[in-house]
């Protein structure tokens, strides 16, 4: 596997707070990597650094061999954990608006994803439930045909049916030969069967970075149970 993302000694400080402390890691082509940890452990900051939205305080980060930024952004789809969708738009308006700002957009995929998610194009975003808005965010991310998807907390704060549909889409959209997915979550139990590898963050530091099946084998425990042990 080629090192798609290479991170060496990454530190990010906000004033005197250390959001990420001396992180080194590598992500190969075609992996699904779970970035795990409780709130405030640095998951979002890590994804934002890779997406080129947050600048490292120190350390070296390359994505597709480049420094994160404009060139890299064309090659990745980043889904923020925030509820950022414009509420006054209809789904159709939102899709048209969002697609204008992004490369490699496939309307055919948008169509298929919205259908799978049971989202009507004519609905106003303001009238969608949280779960439906969560589905819509994922649909927008996977409407882009890019080799790297960064999904920040796609399962948080939404209903069980929506979580289940989102996990189904992750498996359906993933292509081991040409897509890599980084997925942050604190809902480990539901997502863990998807991971090739799990990276645990604690107070901004990386404490575990290992193949998911190796972890289960070595600890005789699910990744969820390891999570509970570490953060409990």
């Amino acid at each position, binding site marked *: 596997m080629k090192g798609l993302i290479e991170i060496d000694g990454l530190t990010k400080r906000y004033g005197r707070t250390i959001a990420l402390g001396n992180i080194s890691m590598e992500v190969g082509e*075609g992996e*699904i990597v779970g970035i795990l940890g409780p709130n405030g452990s640095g998951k979002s900051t890590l994804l934002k650094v890779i997406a080129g939205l947050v600048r490292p305080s120190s350390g070296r980060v390359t994505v597709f061999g480049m420094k994160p930024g404009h060139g890299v952004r064309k090659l990745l789809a980043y889904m923020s954990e925030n509820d950022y969708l414009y509420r006054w738009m209809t789904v159709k308006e939102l899709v048209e608006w969002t697609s204008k700002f992004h490369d490699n957009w496939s309307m055919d995929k948008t169509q298929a994803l919205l259908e799978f998610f049971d989202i009507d194009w004519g609905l106003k975003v303001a009238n969608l439930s949280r779960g439906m808005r969560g589905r819509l965010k994922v649909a927008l991310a996977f409407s882009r045909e890019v080799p790297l998807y960064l999904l920040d907390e796609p399962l948080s704060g939404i209903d069980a049916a929506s979580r289940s549909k989102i*996990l*189904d889409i992750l*498996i*359906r959209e*993933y292509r*081991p030969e040409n897509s890599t997915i980084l997925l942050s979550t604190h809902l480990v*139990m539901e997502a*863990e*069967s*998807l*991971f*090739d590898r799990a990276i645990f963050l604690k107070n901004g530091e990386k404490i575990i970075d290992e193949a*998911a*099946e190796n972890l*289960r*084998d070595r600890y*005789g*425990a*699910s*990744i*969820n*149970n390891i999570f509970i042990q570490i953060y409990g």
Partner: protein
Amino acid sequence: MTLILHDRFDENRPIYLQIMEMIKKAIVRGELKPGDRLPSVRELAVMLRVNPNTVQRAYQELEREGVTFTRRGQGKFVTEDVEAIDALKKAFRRELVEHFLKEASETGMSIDDVIKILEELKDEGIN
């Protein structure tokens, strides 16, 4: 193809091992017959909602054990080797009984206690 899918995995154990067991069990129960085609890696990954790489690993191990084989361009198939399937059945049955005996011995039963009960059950006409 009828492959009975079980609720969830026991995620405290490697998932690829459980996929292997699931397929072997389907063969032993006759739900998968010699020469039957297995679902593609993608199909099974979507069905079970697991990483396709995990399914791939299970398929590789099954092939290495001679339980399945690949036809180029057509996919994976259950072995047509009757002896191999017999061996699978034997191993499966043995494992089942060993597992049962282990549980029995944990409740303080000897193998003779077990045999005694089995004979009683047989006399009562339970098969």
